[in-house]
């Protein structure tokens, strides 16, 4: 702080006193705070509005926008009352956590091999994995749809779990690879000197030390699966339909009950939103594929 102030006064014209500079800096700080909060609230506004609307009556919801209303839980009660809601929510939970667990299970050995037993082909394999992610889902929708229809996976949780697992696998492998590579090589070598075999190395050293990374990878996978809407809209109709499909059903004009829609939406995004808030820092590190520290 000292150096910057001196630097500034040195450059500033002689008649500007240090007090002026300090005052200017204080005002700048206040301005930044106002601007920062204004922008943050603006970006957050649609979510805020949705949450608010969930506590309104249907009449209030379509009335002129106002923050003054008598809050009610009737929309939540109504949404809860629809037996459907819980089924959709359960599908979302089952599908996103199931696919995440499966993806982690498949990805951990692969990422381990890439990070600690690299060969000449490792980099190529990684890039190829990522490139499968660029294969547009629409390009393969028809065959997947037909295969699923023929083997009876349409509108089943298992079917969605399979699709989501494969959909997220490249990103999960990449993120785990990034986290594993961050682990100092020395520590695993020390473990090997101490007599740890591969399994012990993974169990006693790798997993405990990269647990935050694995958790955030899993979380991102859950978020992506939870929010995924292409496959869930196209491969499910009712039995296995997750919340994305449930919410999408409100897009039809006859379903315009905004307060209820808002209540349902709030419940649909709340867990993931809170997860995301808590883990944003960790998640970003993995998402940048180690390119940004």
């Amino acid at each position: 702080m000292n150096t910057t102030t001196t630097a500034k006064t040195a450059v500033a014209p002689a008649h500007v006193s240090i007090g002026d500079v300090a005052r200017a800096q204080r005002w700048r700080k206040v301005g930044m705070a106002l601007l920062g909060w204004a922008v943050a609230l603006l970006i957050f506004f649609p979510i805020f509005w949705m949450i608010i609307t969930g506590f309104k009556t249907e009449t209030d919801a379509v009335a002129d926008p106002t923050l003054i209303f008598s809050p009610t839980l009737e929309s939540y009660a109504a949404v809860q009352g629809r037996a459907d809601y819980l089924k959709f929510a359960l599908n979302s939970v089952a599908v996103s956590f199931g696919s995440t667990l499966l993806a982690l299970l498949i990805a951990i050995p692969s990422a381990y091999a890439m990070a600690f037993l690299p060969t000449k082909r490792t980099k190529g394999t990684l890039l190829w994995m990522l490139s499968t992610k660029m294969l547009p889902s629409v390009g393969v929708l028809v065959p997947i749809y037909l295969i699923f229809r023929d083997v009876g996976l349409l509108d089943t949780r298992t079917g969605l779990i399979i699709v989501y697992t494969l959909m997220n696998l490249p990103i999960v492998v990449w993120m785990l690879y990034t986290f594993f590579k961050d682990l100092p090589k020395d520590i695993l070598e020390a473990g090997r000197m101490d007599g740890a075999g591969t399994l012990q190395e993974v169990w006693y050293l790798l997993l405990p030390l990269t647990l935050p990374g694995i958790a955030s990878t899993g979380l991102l996978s859950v978020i992506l699966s939870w929010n995924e809407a292409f496959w869930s809209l196209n491969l499910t109709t009712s039995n296995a339909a997750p919340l994305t499909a449930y919410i999408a059903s409100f897009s039809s004009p006859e379903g315009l009950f905004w307060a209820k829609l808002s209540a349902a939406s709030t419940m649909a995004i709340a867990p993931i939103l809170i997860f995301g808030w808590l883990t944003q820092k960790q998640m970003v590190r993995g998402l940048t594929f180690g390119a940004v520290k």
Partner: protein
Amino acid sequence: MATLTLNNVVKNFGDTQVIKGVDLEVKDQEFVVFVGPSGCGKSTLLRMIAGLESTSSGDLLIDGQRINELGPAERGLAMVFQSYALYPHMTVEDNMGFSLKLAGVSKEERRSKVLEAARILQLEPLLERKPKALSGGQRQRVAIGRAIVRNPSIFLFDEPLSNLDAALRVQMRIELARLHEELKATMIYVTHDQIEAMTMADKIVVLQGGVVEQVGSPMELYHHPRNRFVAGFIGSPKMNFLPAVAEGVGAAGVEVRLPGGGNVCVPANGEGIARDAAMELGIRPEHLELDEQGALSGRISVIERLGGQTSLYVETEGQLVTLMVDGDVAHRVGDDIRFGFAASRAHLFDADGLALESLERHPLASLTRQDNRAESKA
């Protein structure tokens, strides 16, 4: 109770050969130091001994048993890493006991062995702490403790002191020497710091470009370097090298002409050296002395006063020569001085950089640290 033998050991990384055929004999209870500039292959060689790198060809033998195919843990060695490589999620006690836990040693026995090592290293009050809560020196001691607990046949150290500050480094150096004495174990130590090498080693192995340049006791390397590289690497400040021309070879040694015209007869075996051959004369800064009759002269361009000693950097015939002289010398920058040296202190190198064999062996050249100890006890 462990000897280590390397027979023509080679390491290839792809097409590059980083260890180019190393032969070495490490005796029981010996403290051997691998030293060399960075990239010389010293760490790779250590890691090959540890089993963390494969050996491309040649044999590694411990007590005469070939160990090339054994995994790192089966070799019965312990290694202390430069970064310490402590397990950050385990307490000091768990860190030290991890190898025993993997080996299926009972909890009580583990605890007693860890306590024993902790006693030796004065770590008892820290056993419940995580590495995060330790200072650099304490982490270093835990890393050593982890090695001790395994009761290895050979200790391997990979630049263990390079992350410590200067004062702590001196202290740990002494502690390691003490430890070596107490444990009576064979130790192999890698460093780029020649002071660590000189102070701790029974035997120094100087490596460069994957080749062993010289093996010998510290005093042997200092007094009888085999070539220009070793001469320049061992000793601080660095040895001065002056161009010289052979004037004649006789029973007393080789007569050379120095830059500036002075002549000196160095007592070295000049067999095969022709008259007028271009050579290099090596002389350590601490062996140069101010002398009105000296063979060399020049102008002082920089003076560094350390108190007890003073370094003079003298411009001599277009070359900077370093003198290490008495701390109270009164000269100033710009003074013209004459200086010289005892001919027996000089080293001669031929055009290939190989040292001419000295005609008289330095009396301390074969001294080892063990001899030091024997004398001090007597």
